[in-house]
């Protein structure tokens, strides 16, 4: 018997204690904050109950960072922010300084190193996104690439606060929608049923689990060319791709058939209106890397219509609810089609059962 390899047993430390990494000013003033304001785009000023100030400078990153980028950010953190940083939910980095005089040179250092300062208040913040072609096993498109391209285009709205309220954009590389809900959600939408490699199904897929995964019961076991496989009732299939992760031989992606849909009016916050899901604005846009120009054009139209027409503090969905969907489609030059009528369970709740009509 050969000796078993010696592994180091894991120390199941779990979630680390954040206090050891937190800026000392924040450690000392937990739950002692009085108010905040924003002296300029990209900068927050938090004031404690006893009048001490903490300035936060927020900058955009590419999220998927090489060690050189991270070390550069660490250097800036050492030079200006006492060696402490934090990240936001949307992959922006924040530097905290107590001395207001450090704010301007910190902003300068970030900008000089290519990190846009902004993403606060009524801005278009960093797009939340996923892995895409870089790392995911089921993606219909890339994530970092679409985001880089869109953020180049939206850069001026990131570094300023000229929107009616904050704009949260997300991208997702499949219909599972890891990017999440957004004021604007840019999501892959498959348009063809899966293409099955029957030679592989029996060996790769747990067939009953795949049958169970289908939301419309369109998959059933079948013998194909003498081999146990699966078949799809293409009339029932909604092309959601749910069968593809548990059964990769059911290829859902195609260079031409994988399209992009844009959704609007999702909102996480409870402020004013209750949280909402995003709703379909347009489908069937081409998956046109590396710049996705058709997607970028629609995003730009929607952002501009909202910017020009919404009232201060109205989020995208609240604005559309006020002006009505007819006006939204008119202002954005998008088509309203039968595919905008929901057909899923609970669809009736999305229909207008009143005499309220926008003209």
């Amino acid at each position, binding site marked *: 018997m050969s000796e078993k390899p010696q592994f*180091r047993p*894991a120390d199941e*430390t*779990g*979630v*680390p*204690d*954040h206090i050891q*990494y*937190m800026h000392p000013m*924040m450690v000392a003033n*937990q739950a002692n*904050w*009085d108010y905040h304001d924003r002296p300029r785009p990209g900068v927050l000023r*938090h004031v404690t109950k006893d009048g001490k100030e903490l300035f936060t400078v927020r900058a955009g990153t590419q999220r998927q*960072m*090489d*060690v*050189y980028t*991270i*070390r550069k950010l*660490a*250097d800036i*953190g*050492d030079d200006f922010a006492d*060696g*402490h*940083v*934090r*990240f*936001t*939910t949307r992959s922006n*980095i924040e530097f905290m300084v107590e001395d207001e005089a450090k704010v301007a040179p910190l902003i300068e250092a970030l900008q000089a190193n*290519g990190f*846009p300062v902004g993403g606060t208040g009524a801005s278009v913040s960093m797009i939340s996104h996923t892995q895409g*072609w*870089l*790392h*995911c*096993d*089921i993606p219909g*498109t890339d994530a970092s690439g679409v985001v*880089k*391209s869109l*953020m*180049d285009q939206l850069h001026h709205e990131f570094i300023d606060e000229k929107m009616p309220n904050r704009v949260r954009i997300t991208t997702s590389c499949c219909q599972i929608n890891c*990017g*999440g809900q957004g004021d604007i959600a840019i999501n892959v939408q498959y348009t063809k049923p899966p293409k099955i490699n029957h030679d592989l199904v029996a060996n790769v897929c747990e067939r009953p689990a795949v049958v169970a995964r289908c*939301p419309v019961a369109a998959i059933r076991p079948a013998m194909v060319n003498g081999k146990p496989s699966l078949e799809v009732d293409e009339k029932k299939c909604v092309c959601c791709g749910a069968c593809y992760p548990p059964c990769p031989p059911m290829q859902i992606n195609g260079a031409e058939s*994988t399209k992009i849909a844009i959704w609007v009016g999702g909102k996480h*916050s409870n*402020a*004013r209106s*209750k*949280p909402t*899901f995003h709703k379909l604005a347009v489908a069937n846009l081409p998956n046109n890397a590396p710049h996705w120009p058709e997607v970028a054009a629609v995003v730009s139209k929607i952002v501009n219509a909202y910017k020009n027409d919404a*009232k*201060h*503090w109205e989020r995208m969905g609240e604005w559309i609810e006020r002006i009505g969907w007819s006006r939204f489609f008119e202002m954005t030059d998008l088509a309203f089609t039968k595919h905008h009528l929901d057909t899923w*369970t609970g669809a009736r709740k999305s229909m207008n059962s009143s005499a309220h009509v926008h003209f």
Partner: protein
Amino acid sequence: MKDGDSVDIENRPTPMLDQLEDGPWPSFVTGLKRLRDTKGASYAPMVNDLLGQLNHSYEERMGFWKGGAVSVFGYGGGIIPRYSEVADMFPASKEFHTLRVMPPPGFHYTTDLLRKMCDIWEKHGSGLIAFHGQSGDIMFQGCTTENTQHAFDELNELGFDLGGAGPALRTAMSCVGQARCEQSCFNEAKAHRGIINRFLDEMHRPALPYKFKFKFSGCGNDCVNAIHRADFAVIGTWRDDIKIDQEKVKAHVAEKGRKYTIDTVVSMCPTRAISLNDDDSMEIDNKSCVRCMHCINVMTKALSPGDDRGASVMIGGKRSLKVGDMMGIMVKPFIRLDTEEDYEELEEFAEACIEFFADNALEHERIGETIDRVGLPTFLEEVGVEVDPNMVNHPRTSSYVRTDDFDDEAAKWFERQALEAGMTVASE
């Protein structure tokens, strides 16, 4: 290849990716090229081939990774294995696994810690790290199967642990919270660490029917998107009155104007609970207020949450697979979060929900779907929560229900009401 070996390898052509290097936003492509061009680095050939494969994806408009099974000693989850389907063309990145590592609550780091993470990842991985994935994890992306254990060992020595993957308790997220936000209504990090670290076994050895996610937001602004994305969302709130500093209200009106204040604060209150008096002081009907946070967001100096703080718990948020999108349902309108016992009570409720999920969910079913299947009353009974009108937008509209025990249920309601009012009831 060992560190220090200098082998000149030809750069993979990346004509599609090269187009993503211009423009004002930081470019991940430029970052990857910096790694590729690091002379003598063990990861340089891997990143070169990664760039090649990514460019290939851009040209073919298809992804070329497949999953598999890779883990570290003693754990069943936390690594996302990736094997290239085009390894014949790009052999150096044929294994490109990700380590999901749990971040500190609130995503705080020292620069020293970031550098140590970079050093470990240069030694064992690709040099590419994402802060953070959508699950909240630090994503150490790009590791060979052999190096996965070494990378984990060093990160673990640094005080960090793997997050969740597969049918398991997942990595949680919390907002910056009371560390820097005056709107925070509880100690988000304390609740976050308390709950996750209590159930680590469910994270590291996946045995649940499907994923289970916790998220912690200090107020209704829900900066970590808990209601849509968490099976168990903890959202800060308060029970007493909004605090008003009338002098600062007047200063706000003087600065912004009366019309602007009425348009953006009074008219936007979802329950018409606010009015502006003739002397520019503000009146709030706190019984009608739903703690939405809007007026406090606009008037950060004049208004703030009350003192009787805690959290609401909402259960069952998830995205589409497979019955459609769900937001969490309000299940605990208020848990006071002040003392150790309060946090212990929250942890115990979390435990009851995880147990209900483990016992009752079907394979690949999220708890929200289980609740839809068995009905909210059954879930509430199982986890020991009494019904509350705050759980619904409105009572049922369908008459198809058997109500022969209605009087008994009504008696329970009145008894609970009496107990809460401090009265003695017959059953005591």
